[in-house]
């Protein structure tokens, strides 16, 4: 007798092989769609890329023109008995093909900046990383202890929570002009934007995690002779640490989303500046490569933190 099909049975666990297949599929699907749009000439391709201008006075080799315009031009040339322009269907320049972006992942790093005082891609990325890590570090320096105190002590929570709930709704970019006025146009206002964007969420999230600590463990600690603030450091804290770690990983992800906003505050810098410059030069494959690098960096960082978390809290995995 065969097992019935369980594809649609909710909460069914995947085998490792199915899990891997699903993981691969999650990348193959969008990449496949992209490849189809890029490489199958009759899918989309709204433009003609001119390969030979013929006798046209208007078209130039390498131009991408609207198909209708291209055909109109050729019709005109035909009527006058002149040589026709040659071309092939093409996508707009802002949609490079996968292989072009793949190449760009290398060339974006090896191409020197067009302006002497602009930064290379790796320098731009380093700059962005510095801003985000400083912002996240400073935010955590205040947010994590304050969040834990809020979660553990009702009176701290009462004194902090209402204002933070209010402040949470103020969009961080709204403080851009203010940050520049106070902190200048260098990196400080950018770090400040990330702190403003992260800190208030951080306090609320960490406070919630702390509040969910196991109360019976606190009671067990009390009956073993632990009192007062030592209950927090000896019993509550070690228990919630893995969850706080998980929260921090999620919050770091949020900090990345504030990075792009932060980098246009004051003087544009970092990866955002790089992307804007490349877009100005219409080197769109480099734009994609740079955006892709943000994703790769973020994913790598999170994977690293997840690995470190498993190392730091072996008891969470042991079962």
């Amino acid at each position, binding site marked *: 007798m065969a097992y019935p099909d369980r594809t649609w049975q909710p909460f069914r666990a995947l085998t490792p092989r199915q899990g891997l297949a699903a993981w691969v599929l999650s990348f193959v699907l969008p990449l496949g769609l992209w490849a189809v749009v890029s490489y199958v000439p009759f899918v989309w391709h709204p433009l003609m890329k001119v390969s030979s201008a013929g006798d046209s006075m208007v078209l130039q080799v390498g131009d991408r023109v609207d198909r209708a315009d291209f055909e109109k031009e050729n019709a005109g040339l035909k009527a006058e008995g002149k040589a026709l322009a040659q071309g092939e269907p093409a996508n707009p320049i802002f949609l490079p093909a996968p292989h072009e972006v793949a190449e760009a992942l290398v060339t974006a790093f090896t191409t020197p900046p067009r302006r002497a005082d602009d930064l290379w891609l790796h320098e731009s990325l380093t700059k962005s990383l510095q801003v985000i890590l400083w912002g996240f570090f400073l935010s955590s320096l205040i947010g994590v202890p304050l969040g834990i105190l809020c979660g553990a002590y009702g009176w701290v929570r009462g004194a902090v929570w209402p204002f933070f709930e209010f402040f949470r709704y103020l969009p961080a970019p709204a403080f851009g002009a203010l940050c520049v006025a106070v902190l200048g146009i260098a990196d400080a206002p950018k770090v400040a934007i990330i702190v403003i964007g992260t800190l208030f969420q951080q306090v609320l999230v960490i406070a919630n995690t702390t509040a969910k600590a196991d109360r*019976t463990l606190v009671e*067990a600690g*009390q*009956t073993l*002779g632990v*009192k007062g603030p030592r209950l927090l450091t000896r019993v509550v804290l070690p228990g919630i640490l893995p969850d706080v770690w998980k929260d921090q990983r999620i919050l770091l992800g949020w900090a990345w989303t504030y990075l792009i906003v932060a980098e246009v505050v004051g003087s544009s810098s970092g990866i955002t500046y790089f992307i804007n410059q490349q877009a100005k030069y219409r080197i769109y494959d480099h734009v994609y490569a740079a955006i892709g690098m943000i994703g790769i960096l973020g994913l790598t960082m999170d994977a690293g933190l997840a690995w470190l978390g498993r190392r730091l*809290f072996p008891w969470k995995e*042991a079962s």
Partner: protein
Amino acid sequence: MTVPLPDYHTQSEAVRERFEALRARPQILRIEDLVKRFVVKGKDEATILDGINFAVHKREIVTIIGASGCGKSTLLRLVAGLEDCSGGRILMDGREVFAPGPDRGMVFQSYSLFPWLTVLRNVAFGLKEKGKGTSIAEAEARTWIDLVGLAGYEDHYPSQLSGGMRQRVAIARALAAGPQVLLMDEPFGALDAQTRSRMQAYLLEIWKNVDVTILFVTHDLDEAIFLSDRILVLLPRPGRVGEVIENPVPRPRSMDQLLSPEFLAVKRRLEELIHPESGEEDNKFHMLKLTQAGDEA
């Protein structure tokens, strides 16, 4: 035909002597006119415990039994200092209880082991909290782990142990802190029947070797009788002392005694107290049990 069982009130000479000796021991814990009210929905108050008077003697095992909602767990938590009294007072070795302290160790139904600590560190926790150095605390902890029969599991995390093993670690952890009274809140309630009766025997074995008084909350009649010197029956709404039964079943205890006349007499009395309104259907079943027991005896 029902074989008449002895009334547990008519004590044999041996039993009477046993309890006279017990009463002569110093009282370690006194509960005087204890009242506990909870605020429910704003201003309304529910009286959970009303006028509890009771004393526990040194090295005694007292079980507290009652229907669910009679306040037996609340009573234990009050003794532990985890809840505040609304009236009356609790005296621990003559001093009034206002807060939890290591003189009253507690074992919870949910084990409540620190999941981030190994068995060894869990057991050493209370010792370190008393200010003992790590090596001394861990050496002592090893002795306790040995006593509860878990030698070899020192470096396991709680999540790697079975329910019964976890509860043994919890007992070792509570005892290691050196309490005078061990408070146990339905500690075996989450275990399967076989493990539970094994744990009951274990507990008595440990108690034999350790100078500790035990206050044990349960809703399991057999457990209450098997473990106890005396049984405190709480009646519900509001929680009050229904009766204090001096358990005539002799020590040392064994599972064979579960069907002895004394055991069944106590059990019948507990049934009467806890389920006074049980209908005819129940009674029939009850009689059947007694008949079987009579044959056995």
